[in-house]
Structure formats: structure tokens, C-alpha cells
């Protein structure tokens, strides 16, 4: 860990890279959340379509 810290201190461009990575992770987390919500909607629509078919 000490070595890594020293490395980052001497090559501070990698700190910027870590920061970009963190922002990217945040955006990705939002996408995951959205995907989960859409999957829920998809499932409910499928269920409804099947119920309609059964009624017919």
C-alpha cells in the first residue's frame, strides 16, 4: 500500500485516472438501477400478456 501511495504521488496523472474511474462507476451504477427498473416493467408486461392469452 505504501508503495502504491508513493507511485501515485510521483505519477499524479493516475490520480486523475482514478477520479475518472469513480465517475464512470457512478454512471454505471445508475445504469444498473435503471436496468433493474426496466426489467421489472418488462416482467409485468409479459405477465399481463400471458394472462390476457389465458382469458381468451
Amino acid at each position, binding site marked *: 500500500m505504501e508503495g502504491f501511495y508513493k507511485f*501515485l*504521488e510521483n*505519477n*499524479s*496523472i493516475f*490520480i*486523475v*485516472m*482514478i*477520479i*475518472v474511474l*469513480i*465517475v464512470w462507476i*457512478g*454512471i454505471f*451504477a*445508475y445504469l444498473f438501477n*435503471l436496468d433493474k*427498473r*426496466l426489467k*421489472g*416493467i418488462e416482467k*409485468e*408486461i409479459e405477465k*399481463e400478456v400471458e394472462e390476457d392469452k389465458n382469458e381468451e
Partner: protein
Amino acid sequence: MAWKIFLFILLTFVLIAGISFPIVENPKVWYQFPLIPGLKENAKIIFFHVPSAWLAVIGFLMSTIYSIKYLRKKNLDDDAKSYSAAQLGLIFCILATITGAVWAKFAWGSFWSWDPRQTSIFALLLIYGAWFALRSSIESEDKRATLSAVYSIIAFVTVPFFVFIMPRIMDGLHPGSADDKVTPGGGPIVDFRMNDSMLVIFFLSLIGFTILYYWMWKIGYKSLLYKEKLNKKLIRG
């Protein structure tokens, strides 16, 4: 569609320029950034950390605007828009906090030092964290929308104070504090010692992130609206 391609090109350029353009003592060519004493390459955090904080403010502002709209027209669609905006606001607020803390480890010596800027963003996180707790604790749709709209408006009153005023009138470590030597008396971060090309890329980054935010917000509230519509249809049908 065209604006999405534009956004992709813009953000790609900002990423490449923001990371790879060299920092030199006396910039002579347009793609060189000036050296800021004591900061070295990590001065480039400004292209990614400041837009995150900016989006947090935009998110909270839009959440408040749609809260006011909801209270006036009682349309639940506005509540979904407000919720989606605040969700993004909170995500980018957290990102600004974490990226700031990582940077602070190398610029100030520790991840967290209760600098006025860090204290104020922590208070903001608590305020908006409570907003989400409030929302999830109410079952009735209309009641939840009304209460969270009122809370959102009151919460936003603190945002200009916490983001634009308090960290600038107090002494601190964050650039733009009252005792900052680069911006005497405290001032916006833009007064930071940047040259023209650094300023242009900084503003391009702000514009790019704002468009990205708009896109994320649009997809977010649309998914909420469809979920609501479907739920209502299922209950009625």
C-alpha cells in the same frame, strides 16, 4: 439522435484532452496547460470533479422546479421527474465527495479534513439522504408526492448557501476559499489559475456533463412514468 452523437464526440474529446494534454511551466501551444504550484498533474481533476458537483446542483434545482410544478398542478408525472432529478443529484453529489476525497489525500494529506467545502457537502448529503428516506416511508402516492415536494423545496434553500456561499467566505483548503492566495477574498473556482485552453476544455466538460445529465434524467423519469402507468393499469384491470 444527432445530439447524442454530438455528446459522445464532446465527452470523448473532453476525456482525452482532460487526461492527456500535458502540463508545462510556460504553455506555448494551445494544447498545453499551465503548471499550478503544488498541484502537478492532479490539477486536471477540475475537468471531472467540478462537473460532478455542478450536476449535483442542477439535479437538486430541477427536482425543486418539478416539485413546485407538482404542488401547483398535482400531476404525478412531475413527481417522477422531480424524483429522477434528485436521484441523479444525489449520485453526483456522492461522486463529487468521493473524487474530492481521493484528490485531497494527495493534495492535502488526508481523505477527510472537515474543510468547509467537505463539511457543507456532507450536510447536503445528509439533507438529501433524508429526502429519500422520507419518500420510501410513505405508502400513499399523493401524500408521498406532496410531502416530498415540500421537503425538496425547503432542502433546496440550503443548496446555494452550502455550495456557493459558505465555503467561499470561510478559510479552508479547497481552492476558492476566503484565504486562497490565487483568488483573494474567495471566488468562483473559474478564477483558478487556468489558461484559455484549460478554460475552454473545462467549459466543454461542463456542457458535456450537463447534456449527459439531461439524457440520464430523461431515461430515468420515463422508466418511472411507465412503471407507474403499468401499476395503475394492473390495479384497475
